[in-house]
Every structure is written in structure tokens, then in C-alpha cells.
């Protein structure tokens, strides 16, 4: 499996490369900023790009924007965003285009080599990885115990899993051979069952997906 790593701090870039090599991954290239990263990804078409959020020149959310660009230009490349802080809003932004091949982890999670390797692998295979801290921020601690998906009907679970792949209602309807209207009804029911507070639909959709991902 081939990965590229983008982080403006040499110490972390090199350390990560060393770790990933140790884990048996192939390093296809290292980048120090977002532009370099996007170029590298287009060139190398790696399985996963590991991206730091805060990079030059403004040290704000360059990594996130780079992730969106990679999504657009190289949809097959999975993206694992690493950051020293996790923010729910960033997670929503990342997942708004579908959760396939997306990961968002705290940087310090890299200390567990096996865990890191498996995260990279999951993202490479189109899965998604969310830091427990993000999930906690998004769906709240209260649900930690019970399985939030247990009250969903099998059909609703099916719809939710397709939502998690980033599909639209129309696509889901086509896949399940039902009308779009039916899918809408299922989605509404999912929101209600998961007790997602009314908010712009996109966010509720992502929150539902996050809950789904978390509960699996």
C-alpha cells in the first residue's frame, strides 16, 4: 500500500514516514505544504494521503482544503487527516461529501503502530475512521452505552449505510428499487430515531452517518 505524508514539521513528517515504513507501508512521497501535497497526490496516485490540517502559509485549515481538492482531483485516494486538535465542524466538513475513504484522527493516536496501520488500511479500502473524541463531540457522550442503531429497522439501516457511502437519496432509491419519496421517509425516520436535533439537513445527514460509523 502506498501513502504520501504532508506535515510542515520535519520531525513529524519524518517520524511518521519511519513509523509507516515500519508498519510495512510504502512511502510514495513527503510534502511540507498543501500545494506540494496536491501535486504529489496527482503525480503518485497513492492509496492514502495523510494530511496535517495546519500548514503554511496561513497555518489554519490548509489541510482541509487540500483534502477537498484531492477528493475532487483524485477520488480514489483515501484521506487521513491528522491534527493536534479535533473539531466537530472540521469533521462535518470532511464528511459532507461522503464518508468513504475519509479518516480524521488526533495526531497522538500515531503512537499505537498497529492502530495507525489499520486506520490507514481502512481508509485505503474506502472505509472511514473517526477519532473517538470527534464522535463524542458530534453525537454526545450520553449514547456511549446503548447501541443507537438498535431501534432502526433493517431497511433504515440499509438506507443509513448507503448514506454513509455519501450517496444521495436519488441514488439510494435507485439502488434499493424504491421511490425517492420512500427514501425520504426512511431518512426522516432515521433522524427521528437517532434523535438528531433539527439543523441544516446536510449536518443531520452527516451526524446520522457519524452515529452509524461509531456504532459499527
Amino acid at each position, binding site marked *: 500500500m502506498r501513502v504520501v505524508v504532508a506535515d510542515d514539521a520535519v*520531525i*513529524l513528517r519524518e517520524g511518521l514516514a*519511519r513509523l509507516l515504513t515500519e508498519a510495512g507501508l510504502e512511502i510514495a512521497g513527503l510534502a511540507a505544504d498543501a500545494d506540494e501535497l496536491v501535486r504529489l497526490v496527482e503525480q503518485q496516485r497513492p492509496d492514502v494521503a495523510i494530511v496535517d490540517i495546519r500548514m503554511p502559509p496561513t497555518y489554519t485549515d490548509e489541510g482541509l482544503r487540500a483534502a477537498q481538492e484531492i477528493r475532487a482531483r483524485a477520488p480514489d485516494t483515501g484521506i487521513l487527516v491528522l491534527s*493536534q486538535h479535533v473539531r466537530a465542524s472540521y469533521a462535518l466538513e470532511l464528511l459532507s461529501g461522503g464518508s468513504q475513504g475519509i479518516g480524521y484522527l488526533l495526531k*497522538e493516536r*500515531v*503512537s*499505537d*503502530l498497529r492502530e495507525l496501520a489499520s486506520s490507514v488500511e481502512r481508509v485505503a479500502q474506502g472505509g472511514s475512521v473517526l477519532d473517538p473524541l470527534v464522535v463524542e463531540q458530534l453525537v454526545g457522550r450520553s449514547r456511549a452505552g446503548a447501541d443507537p442503531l438498535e431501534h432502526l429497522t433493517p431497511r433504515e439501516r440499509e438506507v443509513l449505510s448507503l448514506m454513509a457511502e455519501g450517496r444521495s437519496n436519488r441514488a439510494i432509491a435507485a439502488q434499493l428499487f424504491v421511490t425517492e419519496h420512500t427514501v425520504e421517509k426512511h431518512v426522516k425516520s432515521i433522524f427521528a430515531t437517532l434523535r438528531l436535533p433539527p439543523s441544516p439537513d446536510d449536518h443531520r445527514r452527516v451526524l446520522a452517518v457519524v452515529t452509524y460509523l461509531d456504532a459499527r
Partner: protein
Amino acid sequence: MSVALAALMAGVGAAWLAVGRVDEPYQTADAPLALLVGWTFVGSGLVAWRQRPGNRLGPVMIVTGFAWFATFLTDAHAGWAFTLGTAIQSVYLVGFAYLVLSFPTGRLRGPVDTALIAGAAIVVTLVEWLSLLFSDSHAELCSECPPNVLLVDRNDALANGILQVQRLSGVSLALLMVALLVRRWRGATAAERRSVAPVLLAGSATVLVLAVSIANDVVGEPLGQLGKWALYCVFASVPIAVLVVLLQRRLARGAVAGLVVELGEHSDGTDLREALARALGDPSLDVAYWFPTGSRYVDREGNRMQLPGPGSGRIATVVERDAQPIAALVHDAALAENAELVQSVCAAAALTLENERLQAALRARLAELQASRARLVEATESERRRIERDLHDGTQQRLVSLAMSLGLAESKLEDDPGAAAPIVREARETLALALAELRELSQGIYPSLLTERGLEAALDDLCRRAALPATLDASLPRRVPSQVEAAAYFVASEALANAAKHSHATEVRIHARLDRGVLRVEVADDGIGGAVTGSGSGLRGLGDRVEALGGGLTLSSPPGQGTTIVVEIPCG
């Protein structure tokens, strides 16, 4: 007094000469008019001279009056008197032109004005005299007149020619003068117009009548008696206009009385500016209040105001009380001519201005405090951002890297324990670095030495760690409040950092004293100077902090002479 007497006698003489002319008896009607003109000039001149001894207008009017009387010598029977009279018969016109052009300052305004007066002077003297050398009195001047004693060689054609040249030049100069006056009027401000209107009007009328009269002479159709009287009347109106302006200024003093009454009625001073503008007749008037704390002028709302510079057409008259400035009236430069009025207005309004000043100063102080508070908040914010960045880029990175090393070591331990040892060593080194950075950072947030040992020890430590040689001379017998210690410490720290960064200094000296309850810390370097406390400078924020403690921060940094920063904070 003697001038007035002389004028009286000259007038009587002129009248006698005029009446004594036998050839044209109906001209006796000229006498009272002529007297009126001359005496008006001399009288107005005397009044003006007394009012404004430094202004040339008075003397010019008096001389013009006498020059006017001198023209009546042409009516004398004696040849020498007649000749003298003829020779200087137009000199009064130069006085008149000077009067109108230089009003109200008494000074000519530019090279064109000066050239015009010089030209007129030549035309009425040299050209006149030249023509006299060739003019036969009977042939050229008047049939019944006494002989011309200056006659050298009678040449009618030449004399006539010179006379025509003289008249043409006279007309041209008169027209030029009208043009100048029109231009001046157009360029004048409202206040200027107000002060020169009557004189300009009378002067222009005179010039016009004069030009028409000379033009008629040139074409050989003299205006006759009516024209002459018209000229006398408009001419006499010039000194009257000057008097009117002077009287207006007297009336303006009445406006001061009105102002006093008005200020008494509206003690809140809401329309103080309006009242002052009315009293001074300058609608554009502005009031700037002195703000001593900021050493600057502010408007009513407390916003900074710049007094007008030279050449802006506006001037500021500073109003003082007890030798302290309280306000400045920013008004049209034309009002400077009426300094007495401005002074009276200032005196009348001083008390109200002082009240207004206190309020304006309060508003300015408030605005300053608000700005300083905002800067304090901003400084705190940016300090937090700095700390966050330092943590993010330093400690956090080291710790993440440490976590990686440990993860790596862990994985090695299982299948290649020998390879784990160097990784663990590396991790230990990284940890040591992280700890050092964390120590530096926490020291920067708040030096522990300051808490534990006080300012002197903290400053000493600061000097030891400074990037360039720094010495401390401190004598602080007791601890001062911690916020005072901290403020002083951070000023010194920032000053040292600045010296190391920008000053090219070779040495810094810190001097700290506690004197009569005031902590004074001075940081002086021997660098290039030229430092400023602009926005964004760390010192600006520290200055606010010091001020919040009731202290002050001063920066002295003349180019080439090093930078000295002094912070003084009362310690209660």
C-alpha cells in the same frame, strides 16, 4: 492735530484758489465738493492711523488728501504755483490706487500690484514732467492760465503726443486695476468679502468713472462739469467706505456684547461654535479644545484636531486662561486684520470655552481609555495566540514525535529488542527537549523567579539570559505589588528583546529604583535609536498595561543616540 490743522488750511487754500478762478465762474460750485473730497481723505486717514498705527493705510489716505488739495494749485495765478500744481496734479490718483489695492492690510499683495502702482507713479510724475518741458501753457493747458515756467522748447505736437500717451496709459492702468479687483473679489472668502466689500465697491466705481472720463478726454469729448462732479463724489466715497469698514468693526464689537449675552443664555454651550461664528462673521469657524493629557487639540467630541498650517488660508487664535491654552479658534486668515475683535471674542468666550474644553477633554480621555482597553484585550488575545502557537509548534510536536518513537520502540521490542534501545534513547532526548521548551514557554508566560524572589532577582536573571551584554543596577528595598512587578519586568524584557533585535546595540543597562512609592525602571541601550511605539509594537501594549496601573511609559530614541525606555509606576 497738526495734520488736521494743516488739512484745514490746505482745504481753505484750495477752495480760495478754486473760487478765485475768474475764467470759469460756474466752477465755484467745485469748491465745496473739492473740500469734501480732501477733508474726507485726511479725516479718514487720521482715524485709520489712530486705530491702526502699524497700518500704512492711514498715512496713505492723509497724503492722498493733501495731494488732492495740491491739484488746486493749477488754479493759482502765479506761474510757479500753476506749474507745480500741473506737475503733481495726478499724484493723488496713485495714492488712491494704492489705498484700494492694499486694503485692508496696507501692503501690496504681489508683483502685479507693485508694477501697477509703479507704472502709475511714473505716468503721473515723469511722463507729466516730460510733457511740461514742451507744453506751452496757452496752447496745451488752458487759454487763461499763467505761463508754464518749466517750458524749455515749445513743441505742440510732441507735448500733445506725450499727453495722449499719458492718458492711454492711465486708462490701461485703470482697467488693469479693475481686473485685479474683480479677480480678488472672486477669490475672496466670505469673511474677506465682508471686510473689503465697501472699499472695493467705491474703488471700482471711482476707477470706472475715471477711465470713462480719461477715455472721453482722449477722444476729445470731455465729460464736462457733470462728469467731474460724479468723479468727485465716487472718489470721496472711497475714504467713506474705509470709515464704514472701520465702523463695522466697531459694530462687530457690539457683536461681542451680543455674544456675551448669548453665552449667558445658553450656558450649556451647545451652539458655542455658532455663536462665535456669528460674532466673528466667519461661518467656517471651528473650535479646537486643548487636551493637556494628550498634548493635542481635540474637537467637541474629543477627536484629534490638527491646527491649520501656514499658507492654508486659515489661522488659529489660541485662547488662554492663566497662561494655559484652553482652546483655539480656527478661522479665516482675513480675520487676522481684525485682531482686536478676535481677541475680544476670545476674552468674552473664555469661560464658556473652558467649560466646553473640560467636557471635550473628558470625551477625549474616554475615547483614549476605550482605545487602550481595546488594545489591552487585543494584547491579551495575541499573547494567547502566541502561546498557543508556541505550544503547537514546540511542545506538542515534540510530544507527538515522542509518542511515535515510543510506538516504534514498542513494535521493535517484540521482534528486534536490540533495535529498540536507540529509539528509546532518541525518545528520551526528545522528551528533554520538550521539557526545556516548556520551561522556556512558561517562563515567558510568567517568570517563576518574579513570583518567588521579586523584581530585582527576575531582572538580574533577565540580564544573564539576555542575547547581548546587559547590566543591572537595582536598588529595590521591598517587594512591590505583583502586577507592578510584572508590568515593569515585561517592559524590561520587551526592551531587551527589541534592543537585541533592532538596535545594533553593544550593551544595555537596566536601572531600577523605588523612590517615594514610585517604581522607576530605565532600560537604555547604546544602539542606533530611531525606535517608535507604533501600533503592533509590544511596547504599545505594555504602555497600556502600565497606564492601567496609573503609571507611564516613555520612549526616547533619537537617531544615533541609543534608545531609552523609562517606566514609572506608583506602588501605592
